[in-house]
């Protein structure tokens, strides 16, 4: 009888063992990328979004966080419209993610016939909030503060050239906000990417710009450009001597989110894998160091449904902003 029981026991053990092995196998074989991941940047090369994407790509490789590489691809056309449409057309694809700017909200509002609804996209994680400063070439010696900046712009009128990364991008919104606050009108000239804007400011082809710190830092350090005012709630650690617009009595505060999003209908397993990956990156020493150096705010990790809620609130805020300054002020028509 004992022998008989033992006879039963062996196959039972074998079965339990194999089930256990199988289960652990499926657990570790949770979703993994099977081919290179397209890392879409909705802006041109050299800009803030581009630098971030390339840094993240590098960190992923350096820390071997992904079995397949991330390939950054720039799709700057039409203030990010090209990238948004591309992502929409990739619905259900688990091997493409987008690094955003605020044109993620504004472009679908301004270009209604694009047919993109961002609430359909798969939220992954928010990497940072980026900040804005007003920059001029150092050679404009008579501009030392916001007051004489505004005076000079008013005098120049439409001959004052403000460079930016495209109508509907955050810098164009901020420019429109300044126009309505100070009561002047400038000429807004779009360039493909914040790096090119910076170059054109240094080369004096434009008169001022609202670049992100990352885009101007090296020129600032070289003494070629200077910040006049920052559009944050409080002075940033990196720019202790530059006043905020709010301090000067002008309520212009504007941030840009840098988040990672997937196409509509990305599988839950893939979404979880990406959330996990980008969370690791967010908490890495390298990323936090980059945030401090570049004047990015990176103190809170927002992912998944929380990010979707954040997107919803921001989209509503941008809609209100656009209505206030008028879409025409942003598109320049």
């Amino acid at each position, binding site marked *: 009888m004992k022998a008989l029981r033992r006879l039963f026991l062996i196959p039972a053990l074998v079965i339990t063992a194999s089930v256990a092995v199988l289960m652990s196998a499926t657990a570790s074989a949770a979703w993994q990328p099977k081919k290179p991941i397209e890392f879409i940047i909705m802006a041109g*090369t050299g800009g803030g979004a581009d630098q971030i994407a390339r840094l993240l790509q*590098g960190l992923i490789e350096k820390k071997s966080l992904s079995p397949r590489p991330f390939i950054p691809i720039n799709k700057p056309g039409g203030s990010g419209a090209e990238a948004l449409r591309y992502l929409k057309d990739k619905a259900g694809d688990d091997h493409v993610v987008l690094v955003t700017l605020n044109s993620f909200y504004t472009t679908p509002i301004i270009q209604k016939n694009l047919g993109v609804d961002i609430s359909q996209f798969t939220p992954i994680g928010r990497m940072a909030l980026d900040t804005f400063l007003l920059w001029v070439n150092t050679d404009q010696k008579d501009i030392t503060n916001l007051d004489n900046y505004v005076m000079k712009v008013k005098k120049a009128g439409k001959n004052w050239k403000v460079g930016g990364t495209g109508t509907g991008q955050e810098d164009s919104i901020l420019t429109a906000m300044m126009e309505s606050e100070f009561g002047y009108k400038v000429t807004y000239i779009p360039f493909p990417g914040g790096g090119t804007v910076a170059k054109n400011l240094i080369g004096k*082809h434009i008169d001022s710009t609202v670049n992100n710190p990352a885009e101007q830092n090296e020129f600032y350090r070289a003494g070629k450009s200077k910040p006049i005012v920052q559009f944050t709630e409080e002075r940033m650690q990196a720019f202790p001597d530059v006043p905020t617009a709010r301090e000067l009595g002008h309520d212009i505060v504007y941030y840009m989110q840098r988040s990672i999003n997937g196409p509509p209908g990305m599988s839950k397993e893939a979404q979880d894998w990406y959330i996990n990956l980008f969370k690791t990156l967010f908490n890495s020493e390298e990323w936090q160091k980059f945030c401090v150096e570049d004047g990015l705010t990176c103190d809170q990790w927002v992912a998944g449904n929380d990010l979707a809620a954040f997107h919803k609130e921001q989209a509503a805020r941008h809609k209100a902003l656009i209505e206030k300054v008028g879409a025409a002020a942003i598109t320049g028509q």
Partner: protein
Amino acid sequence: METILVSLGGGLAEAVQPLNLTMIIIGCVIGLLVGAMPGLGSVNGVAILLPITFLVPPNAAIIFLAAIYYGAMYGGAISSITLGIPGASTAVATVFDGRPLAQQGHADKALTAAATASFIGGTISVVLFTLFAPPLAEFALRFGPPEEFALMVLAFATFIGLGGDDIPKTIFSILIGLVLATIGLDIISGKPRLIFFDVSGFLHGINFLVLAIGIYGIGEMLWTLEQTKGQVIVHKVQTSFRAMFRNIRDVKHYAGTTTLGSILGYFVGTLPAAGATPASLMSYGLAKTFSKNPDSFGKGNVAGVAAPEAANNAASTGSMLPMITLGIPGSPTTAILLGGMIIWGLRPGPLLFSEHPDFVWGLIGSLYIANLFTLLINLAFIPVFVRVLTMPFTILAPIIFTLCIVGGYAPTQTMHDVWLMFVFGLAGYLLRKLNYPVAPAVLAIVLGPLAELSLRQSLLASQGDAMIFLERPISATCIALAVALMLYPSVRRLLERRKRAAATE
């Protein structure tokens, strides 16, 4: 000057250290293969191999990536010449004369010319880089939208002003290219333009490599099929060391073209907007315009291979200048290099030269060494590459066909582009039958978007006043040169006619 020589000496010493030298050689070989493979190109090569660089110190890493970039510029010519498919966008102009040469059994000549011209282009530009990097960076800054537009006009002029070709047909071909270039989202307002049948693939615009592969790969194959009527032809190739040395010595016949192409390529490369592709096309156009025998271009003139190859290598060095000094990549590949530098903790910008001289000079030193090694490796492989042509067309054609599909699919990874490529192939074949030049269309689709953007930016800045192009010294000079180039062939023809008339009298 002395400090430059000392720094360069240090850089060269750095580059020949065993680890760095190994990286250079491996990088060159990988680059050569990546460049020769249609659709792969240096962008993908550098992107895929970026992670490997974390295993070695930053200096060795950038040297490795730069060597790949460099090798790919050489490699692009190989498939352009042997198969007639441009391996990369920078090698499209190489097909114009490289392919006819190969068909006439002179592939070895074309390949040697490509390698030698690349070497000369690379060397001239790296010397310019060494001596004049800071002032040139300053000069690049002076290029705003009006200057960029004037440069584009100059580029178009090099193609319109070609003597010998049918000028109305050339203009027609340019216009077709320009129309194709407007497809996609408007650069400034973001509104969709010319989205045929509402196919969303058109939103991304027409990728220029798709057009080039279609016209030259598929179109050419159809043409060959018709010409040979299915007969099996085998190209004769002879390769010997003596022939190779003779080919290398032939460089002196097109030394002027090569030097001009190198200098032009370097300058165009330093401008962040342009890069190696426009540089190689402009260099080809100039070589043809100033040739004593412009009619032979497009039918197998060795100078037509040397000019674009010198320019694209020079431009690849040139595009490192804005990357290092301004932090703005001059080409997609340098954009990835830039990403690498950020990860290694190096911030490119005006201060990089003074804050990290070891790094910058190590990179410059490696360019000298990489150039030499790529030349040697390339020359050593020429007999192997030429073997490809000894395959019967019945075997070669399916290979070309497959490579075309891969090359059409790879850049955007959509089937839409593959279908487009077939359409362009058919259209290219028909245009060729009707004796239309297709090269101007290729030029127009590359330069069209750049020209449109800079034109509209300039006019926005000037409140619609076109005088902005003539008021600024650099752009006025470019426009004047463009006008002169357009008139040059007719003036020359007029002078020749008068001379002939005088002779007969």
